[in-house]
């Protein structure tokens, strides 16, 4: 990899002050270091955050908001009693991704910032607008089995690879960030962005901002939730399509529905109008198809990934069924409930 400076700031302020466009914060390094070896990420310096205090806590406040520090590992978050009790959906989604070894290293903040698995993005001997703006997007007419069907642009059809973020979208989590001008709270759906004409930018995070925590508002969905992930093998593969659902029920009716899709777009995909189709009604299976159709409105394939449209429709219906039936998908047993 290219030579780089390595620093270990002792305070958050020091980390922020030291951050430039050309430097990167280092959490678990499970994605960043790989990309550096591939010569895709070429930071002039790495600011290792692991000495910072106060970013490894998991707490729940009086309103029931769960706050997870950015340096909490994915494994610790998934195993934390507060997460398991109040947001099992998040634990399920984390456990659906990667491997135990990776989850031990990967941090919550880093997971938010993981980059696409687009084959071309990883291969510096091919063009890629995300890696090198202006070089083109061979994926559109090339190998695009894992690529996006929603929210694409002529410049980029990459997907966001995280499972965790799909659950966070369904949980309406908020990303807490700190920059030179103080703290800022960004809704998950505004945190990741669509590629548009700047596919090199994955998020709305400013170059000098650092993620400090994830906050998840209290929700009473009980067991009416699921994270359903379909992939090319049953473990350690990124989602072809995944669906996170929380379904709050009151007197047999859906009072609040949140559905987020993974593996289909440059960000976790939510469509409030689709969710509204079930709200205020019983969770009637007959209407699941309409919810799916609305979520997938405007979807287009690029050849190899054409199947994702049909597969997503089936997955959404099943996930809604799982949430309605209070039979969330297990990520230990691979049989789909």
């Amino acid at each position, binding site marked *: 990899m290219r030579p780089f400076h390595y620093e270990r700031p002792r305070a958050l302020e020091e980390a922020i002050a030291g951050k430039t466009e050309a430097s990167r914060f280092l959490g678990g390094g499970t994605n960043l270091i790989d990309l550096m070896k591939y010569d895709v990420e070429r930071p002039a310096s790495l600011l290792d955050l692991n000495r910072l205090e106060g970013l490894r806590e998991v707490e729940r406040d009086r309103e029931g908001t769960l706050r997870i520090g950015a340096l909490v590992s994915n494994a610790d978050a998934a195993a934390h009693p507060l997460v398991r009790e109040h947001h099992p959906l998040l634990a399920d989604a984390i456990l659906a991704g990667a491997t135990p070894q990776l989850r031990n290293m990967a941090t919550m903040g880093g997971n938010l910032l993981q980059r696409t698995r687009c084959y071309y993005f990883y291969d510096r001997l091919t063009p890629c607008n995300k890696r090198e703006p202006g070089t083109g997007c061979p994926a559109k007419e090339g190998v695009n089995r894992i690529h996006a069907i929603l929210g694409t642009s002529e410049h980029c059809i990459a997907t966001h690879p995280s499972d965790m973020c799909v659950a966070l979208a369904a949980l309406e989590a908020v990303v807490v960030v700190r920059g030179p001008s103080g703290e800022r709270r960004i809704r998950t759906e505004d945190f990741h962005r669509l590629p548009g004409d700047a596919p090199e930018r994955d998020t709305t995070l400013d170059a000098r901002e650092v993620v400090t925590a994830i906050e998840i508002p209290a929700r009473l969905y009980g067991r009416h939730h699921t994270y359903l992930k379909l992939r090319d093998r049953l473990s350690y593969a990124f989602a072809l399509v995944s669906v996170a659902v929380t379904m709050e029920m009151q007197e047999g009716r859906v009072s609040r529905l949140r559905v987020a899709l993974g593996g289909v777009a440059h960000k976790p995909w939510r469509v409030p109008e689709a969710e509204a189709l079930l709200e205020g009604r019983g969770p009637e299976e007959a209407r699941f198809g309409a919810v799916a159709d609305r979520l997938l409105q405007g979807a287009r394939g690029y050849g190899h990934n054409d*199947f994702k449209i049909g*597969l997503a429709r089936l997955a959404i219906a099943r996930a809604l069924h799982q949430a309605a039936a209070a039979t969330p998908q297990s990520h230990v047993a691979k049989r789909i409930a």
Partner: protein
Amino acid sequence: MMHHPLIGTPQDRVDGRAKVTGTARYVADFETGAEVLHAHVLNSAIAIGRIRRIDTTRALAVPGVVEVFTHENRPRTAWFSSSYKDDVGPPGKPLRPLYDSSISYSGEPVALVVAESYETARYAANLVEVEYEAKPHETDLLKQLPNSYVPKKRRSGINPPPRPKGSAASALESAPVKHVARYLIAAEHHNPMEMHATTVIREADGKLLIHDKIQGVYASKQYVCSVFGLSEDKVRVVSPFIGGAFGSGLRPHYQLFLAVMAAMALERSVKLVLTRDQQFTIAHRPETWNEVALGAKPDGTLTAIRHKAIGSTSRYEDHQEAVVNWTNLLYSAPDVQLEYELVQLDIETPTDMRAPGAPLGAFAAESAMDELAEKLGVDPLALRLHNDTQTDEVMNKYHTSKELRAACQLGAERFGWRHRPFAPRSMRQGRELIGWGLAFGAWEAQMQKHAARVMLDAEGHCTVGVATADLGTGTYTILAQIAAEALGLSMNKVTVLLGDSALPQAPVSGGSWTAASAGSAVHDACARLKAELLLAAQTQRGSPLVDAKLEEVMFDRERIVLMRDPMRAVSLQAAFAAGGRPRIVADGQAGPDQLTQLRYSSHTHSAVFVEARVDEELGQVRVTRAVSAVAAGRILNPKTARSQVVGGVVWGIGMALHEEAMADHNLGRWMNHNIAEYHIPAHADIHEIDVIFAEEKDMLTSPLGVKGLGEIGIVGTAAAVANAVWHATGRRVRELPMTIDKVLGLTPAHTEAR
């Protein structure tokens, strides 16, 4: 008195402890000091064309970079491509790395950076600037099918299809029941745990000690001597452990050439370890298209077989495999037409991958047999047994042995096949449809010429030496068993040395021939050593064995015992004392018996039974049960043998469901070149795997009665999975891998066209 047999008993791997404690040294583990230079390859970005300009200035400016080799400054090596040939290479002109400015596939080496550290070399390689002049390329097999051809020159060791018998075309026309379909298998890349690597240690006298990831050290040695014009005494290749190779180490690859070139030019030791991505630039199992037509009478008797396969190869070599012959080897028919052709693409030459050809043909033929059974309304196992051949109808020879029926019976019983409902979609549990499928498989049982040396000292320590490789297969262990049993020693008294070109010669370890061939050579050496020991024992004054013949004694617990009177025995120690030599050395050999080969054909066989569970709506497949019943002659070590077959079954499941090298035909480049995106099975994909060995007595194939097990485990597995998925869902998938979209019918099949 009891003789304790070792052959046929489950034995732990003798190298197991070294492997799990990390003391077993693989290629990259040698020469870890600061004196070794590290090399990194820069690969071509285009498929075909030439390098117009290559600028190494920036790379050379990096501190720690010693040299950057390109076609412009490479040292002179052999001129003719024939000097680059290896024993198993196909007809054609082998790749000559950095030879000139021309490029023949995406991933071909264009520069080698040599530096004081690995990280520096890898970094500097990114700074080499290359300007290409690309020419139009073609990497799409399906598009090129109309340009297929019969290879002009056959590849040594690969039988081309036999001449047609009768007229399959007219027999098919008049067949009361027939089935015709096309089947396609994706290209696959070898992904052993250990990367391909070469460590070249340049010794003070200029001799080269080479550690190379190779399935036979003599292959590397011969290549290096020939390409670099070195005499044999200047090169020694030592590769005691190989971390899996599966065929990818049968031929020397570019890292060997480049590491030796750099070491000689720089007069330093050099280490070159490929990255996982670069594993996708050296070898692969060729994408292969099949068409199978079967004709049958209403009672299921086959009247015609036509099987044509077209495989991909590179522009510079005609890689060939036996894909179609197996169909007639397994099933009898009066009219048979088998054809095998190639299509040239701008890709690297494919290389043998576990059971090369066989699982490709088996997927097509064994799927087709299932489809025919469905049309006939008969049980697919009954149809297979009804058409089972008793002789080898391809070569017109007798089988040395063929206990496929016995294996089949054992497998069917263990699996519970008789409870299988005929109709698909008959079994379900919750939302999962359950299907049962089976397939047959066959592989050649071969002998190759091997030499072995066995040395015994007065303390009863035995050293066995053969140059063959243990690829993780268990060769160390079985050779120790063979020698220990022959000489009446315990296993821990035997040390096996492998993978060293200073040891008696052996070819590459492949084709499932190592156990039979190397094992027989060791057995032969032991027999000679025993004769010498007996002679020594007889020189003892008043020897109780004075009139004993070799066949009248047994070697047991470090003694030579007269079988008819066990009280008459001489200890090995006494024999050594009498013989007056500190150690006895004996050389042995083994090889194919020409007369037997003329009359007989020898194969291993298997029947694989698989249960697949498929989510009815979502198409997610789980292979929840597999039984592989194998007839493979004598089983030397049931423990390592089981492991071999389990590995084959796992890979077969991967072939069925996961493995696929995806090419961007616009760029002419494999794109999923890492194991995050190139999928092999994870633990979650693998459930129960049962291995059964049917008893098979065969003293014709090899002196030990061994047939070999390296390949047979994979052969029928993918077809059995496809048949199980069909039985579960009623959907026939004729393209591998059977990804979720194909199982759901959401992706149009390529095999419908043409």
